[in-house]
């Protein structure tokens, strides 16, 4: 939360010299509070005031980019507690834990799983975002060797190096210079050493404490040592404690502008049982985790976790949409069928998927309905006979296909007659209600 006008006023020179273009320092302070002026207009403001005011206007949860290149992930920047208030900004990073006690071939196998984890869903490419290497062996040489393997086999993937030993951290982090890794395991006793490494290597620090009080003290200390890019772990491992601590951290940062906890949260949710682990991850995804560390990433599990993350992080005001146009599925000829639907991403991907399954080359006309589903768009007056007629006429499709037949979704059978009236020379055919009826429907026509 930003400072009030009076709080800002206290920080200004209070000379009323008018150089800022305002009659008094107080008037200027009021403008600053409303964000209608910027501090640089006052030439006499002290460095101290600049720092305090700068901090107060910074986002409540620090934005941090983890990793580098096209696989880098953004974290932080959240502004609300509930997704209906405003979009959650940066989707939670999913990381897989690799222990340095594993054999080289086991590590390689897991790295392959990470590298091939990408799935396309509703037009987004989703994947396991990061690797967390744990110094389970307690041995510096093993840790470094495993880090080397990761840096050569999975070079673009963001990495968390988990160890409480500064010498091990330093050895491993040097393998990721310029790649913005996280050094996790920073605590009260190794903070100085870790901060120095982070400064030299431009790494992010993963700070761990026992409880929120201790955590706040620790982040303050690290900040005073000159490192500001941190992810924080309150020590919570049980689902109940994750909910409690993550909620209190988010509230403190957003509602109280409490800076010591204004960092992205990392949660460790490893469980032996893979399904159970996925569900604890679900608790983290819904309740404010920025990074979740897991043990296993089977394909079925990834799909479910990615989908939940996507659902929770969609904009509640603007449904996901695809571009209005006539999509070709397969290689349609001038005789191929023409179907129509709305531009709600989910609708488009379900329908186009089923058309693909049918193996019948088909055109799918996607009409802009502001991202609403078929029935919702119809009920909202956006998928109506006259709008469909205009869209088809203006699309130029009449030059592309020889026939004049339009297949509409079964749920809007009711408008088939009026489309025929408004779209001269066209015949309207009512398709099945559910898209999964499309393969049989299309095949039966050939």
């Amino acid at each position: 939360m930003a400072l009030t006008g009076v709080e800002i006023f206290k920080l200004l020179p209070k000379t009323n010299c008018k150089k800022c273009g305002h009659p008094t320092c107080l008037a200027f302070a009021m403008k600053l509070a409303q964000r209608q002026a910027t501090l640089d207009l006052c030439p006499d403001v002290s460095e101290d005031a600049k720092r305090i005011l700068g901090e107060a206007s910074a986002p409540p949860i620090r934005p941090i980019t983890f990793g580098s290149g096209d696989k880098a992930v953004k974290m932080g920047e959240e502004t609300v507690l509930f997704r209906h208030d405003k979009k959650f900004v940066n989707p939670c990073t999913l990381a897989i834990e690799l222990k340095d006690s594993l054999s080289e071939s086991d590590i390689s196998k897991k790295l392959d799983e990470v590298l091939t984890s990408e799935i396309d869903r509703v037009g987004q490419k989703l994947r396991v975002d990061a690797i967390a290497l744990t110094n389970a062996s307690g041995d510096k040489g093993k840790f470094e060797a495993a880090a080397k393997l990761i840096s050569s086999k999975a070079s673009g993937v963001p990495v968390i190096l988990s160890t409480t030993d500064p010498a091990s951290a330093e050895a491993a982090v040097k393998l990721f210079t310029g790649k913005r890794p996280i050094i996790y395991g920073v605590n009260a006793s190794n903070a100085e050493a870790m901060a120095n490494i982070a400064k030299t290597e431009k790494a992010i620090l993963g700070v761990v404490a026992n409880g929120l009080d201790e955590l706040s003290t620790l982040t303050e200390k690290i900040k005073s040592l000159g490192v500001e890019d941190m992810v924080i772990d309150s020590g919570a491992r049980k689902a109940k404690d994750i909910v409690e601590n993550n909620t209190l951290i988010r509230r403190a940062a957003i509602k109280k502008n409490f800076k010591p906890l204004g960092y992205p949260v990392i949660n460790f949710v490893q469980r032996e049982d893979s399904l159970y682990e996925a569900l604890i991850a679900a608790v983290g995804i819904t309740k404010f985790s920025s990074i979740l560390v897991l043990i296993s990433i089977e394909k079925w599990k990834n799909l479910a976790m990615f989908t939940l993350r996507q659902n929770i992080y969609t904009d509640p005001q603007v449904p996901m949409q695809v571009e209005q146009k006539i999509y070709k599925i397969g290689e349609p000829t001038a005789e191929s069928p023409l179907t129509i639907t709305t531009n709600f991403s989910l609708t488009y991907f379900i329908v186009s998927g089923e058309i693909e399954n049918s193996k019948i080359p088909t055109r799918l006309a996607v009409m802009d309905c502001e991202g609403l589903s078929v029935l919702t768009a119809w009920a909202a007056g956006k998928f109506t006979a006259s709008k469909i007629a205009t869209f088809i006429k203006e699309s130029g499709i009449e030059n592309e296909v020889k026939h004049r037949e339009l297949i509409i979704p079964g749920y809007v059978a009711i408008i088939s007659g009026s489309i025929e009236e408004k779209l001269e020379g066209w015949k309207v055919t009512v398709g099945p209600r559910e898209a999964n009826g499309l393969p049989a429907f299309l095949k039966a026509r050939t």
Partner: protein
Amino acid sequence: MAFVAPKETYSGKVYNVNIGTGDKAISFGSENVLPFHSFEGAVPNKPLIAYEIQDVPPSDWPENVQKPYSSVSGDPVTWAKFCQDSLNAKAIALRLLGTHPDRENRSPEDAAKTVKDVLAAINIPLIILGSNHAEKDAPVLIAAAEVAKDKNCVIGKAQEANYKTIAAAAMANNHKLIAMSELDINLSKQLNILITQMGFDKERLITDPMCSALGYGLEYTYSVMERIRLAALTQNDLTMQPPMLADVGMYVWKIKETQAPESDVPQWGNAEERGIAWEAMTATALLMAGAELLIMRHPKAVEAVGKVIEELNA
């Protein structure tokens, strides 16, 4: 800077709803905080999961969720007993799907007989659901409510089109009632008001804001539930204080992700585990949004979600 935990105090409280009779009766709701926020208030009960069964064999369910019931699902009484005795179900939700005019079109009398037989065979609470055909559900649920009189069941679902008769039947026979509207907080509030205006006690209601599956509109159900719960707790809105239902199984086990074999979509992995995960994850997300009563199908999904509930309360 010293850390002061920013705890909230809430002005409202979710109603306590108790269902069933005897020593297997069970309560849900009653908390005065957001889901699993026992650090700032009282959470006396845990969310309850009911096993879904139906009056007709589950030929409409995907293979992978039919399988665990293959030897019992031919008959609702055997099926119900199996859930109670072998799966340790705490409650059962009997869906009278066979009464749907497009299905077997069974009569209200047939449905009532099924309800009676199931009730005679179990001692855990029973939730009695229609086939979601607004017109047919009215006579079916009236007959069911009567035959189950004083068994303290849950009757559902009352919707805008049929709430009057169903609510009257639930009231006359001492049952709890599910009020369902379609993913809109205002519609949900309005239906609860209409039902209480008939003289139905608001503390005997369960709100169903309509479920959706993970990947298929879950975010809408999630946010409607969160908003309902916030209205109940922070604004002390009495009409929004009944516990909420997530009717998970039915929505989850009809989508592609719970059915497509791995051979069709190799990138999606094992179909059986995928289906179970889909149901369990949908349920877990809705628990976080505020659901207190869940209706689910796969025993492994129920078991996993049960463990999560324990860990969220432990």
